């Protein structure tokens, strides 16, 4: 059971709603993922022929927890305004806070993210911060009142998988009592399994599923990988060794002699 933002969740897979070939594929992929949390955004009214009523009604019918993001915000002020609008539209205190600091790799702005988190938490928001794996950034977010941390594995949409496994392991060890979700940068189910084996509490991803040739099958594959990684973490993995050790017992090996002939 994963406790996030005051809710108890069975699934450790949080999934995005963007870039699917069709709304129906999105619906099927979310169902296949088993996710109970979906990320959404706010965009200008009149952007294309988008049917926002049908979109939100579908997510409501599916009884999903909605996690709105502040994607595309580069300033604290914009992130605060989008968060407040999102609370009204989606009727939730949850916000996936993204304050982007760099246009090139969409890296979060740690200073802006912390500043915005402080204000939003005072206003009663449950802040899910999009962040790097920097320990001091994480400390400041916890000081601000965040109850969950969401470090990236690699830049958003890159699909590269954990760019710095050592630093993610350090992060996990440093904040062992805080729910930590890997957000962004995963491309394959094996990436998701790898971070779950490290002991992360969950995975948030979007593009790896929605841009797959078959998003529904990929959602299922990720769900299995996340589950496998979690079970492996709980089961406790054997330590790595430098050299070979036989798995079959040596005792009683036939034709064995104390002295070499």
């Amino acid at each position: 059971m994963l406790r996030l933002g005051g809710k108890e969740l069975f699934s450790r897979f949080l999934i995005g709603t963007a870039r699917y070939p069709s709304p129906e594929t999105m619906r099927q992929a979310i169902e296949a993922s088993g996710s109970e949390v979906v990320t959404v955004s706010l965009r200008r009214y009149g952007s294309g022929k988008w049917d926002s009523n049908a979109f939100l009604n579908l997510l409501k019918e599916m009884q999903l927890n909605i996690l709105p993001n502040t994607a595309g915000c580069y300033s604290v002020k914009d992130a605060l305004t989008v968060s407040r609008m999102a609370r009204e539209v989606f009727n939730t205190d949850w916000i996936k806070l993204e304050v982007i600091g760099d246009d090139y790799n969409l890296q979060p702005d740690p200073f802006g993210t912390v500043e915005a988190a402080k204000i939003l938490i005072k206003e009663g928001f449950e802040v899910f911060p999009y962040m790097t794996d920097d320990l001091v950034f994480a400390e400041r977010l916890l000081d601000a009142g965040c109850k969950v941390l969401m470090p990236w594995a690699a830049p958003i949409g890159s699909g590269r998988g954990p760019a710095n496994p050592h630093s993610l392991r350090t992060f996990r060890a440093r904040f062992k009592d805080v729910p930590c979700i890997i957000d962004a940068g995963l491309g394959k189910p094996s990436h998701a399994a790898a971070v779950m084996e490290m002991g992360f509490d969950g995975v948030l991803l979007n593009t790896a599923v929605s841009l797959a040739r078959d998003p529904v099958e990929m959602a299922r594959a990720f769900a299995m990988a996340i589950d496998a990684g979690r079970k492996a973490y709980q089961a406790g993995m054997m330590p790595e060794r430098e050299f070979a050790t036989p798995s079959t017992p040596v005792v009683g090996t036939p034709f064995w002699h104390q002295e070499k002939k």
Partner: protein
Amino acid sequence: MKLVVNGEAREFDRVENVAQLVKSLGGDVKFFSVALNGEFVPRGDYEKTKLGEGDDIEIVTPFPGG
């Protein structure tokens, strides 16, 4: 009165507050939210939030996101 709505400058007649602006845009969008000059305007404040020449209004709706 000239207003900038979602980044586009437009002329509006007989629009004095946010409630009237939203109504004048028509459409059947059920879920939306409004910001005036970068600040969130709660739904309950639409009537009393007056608009002035050159005001910048953002109207947003739910959209897919990651």
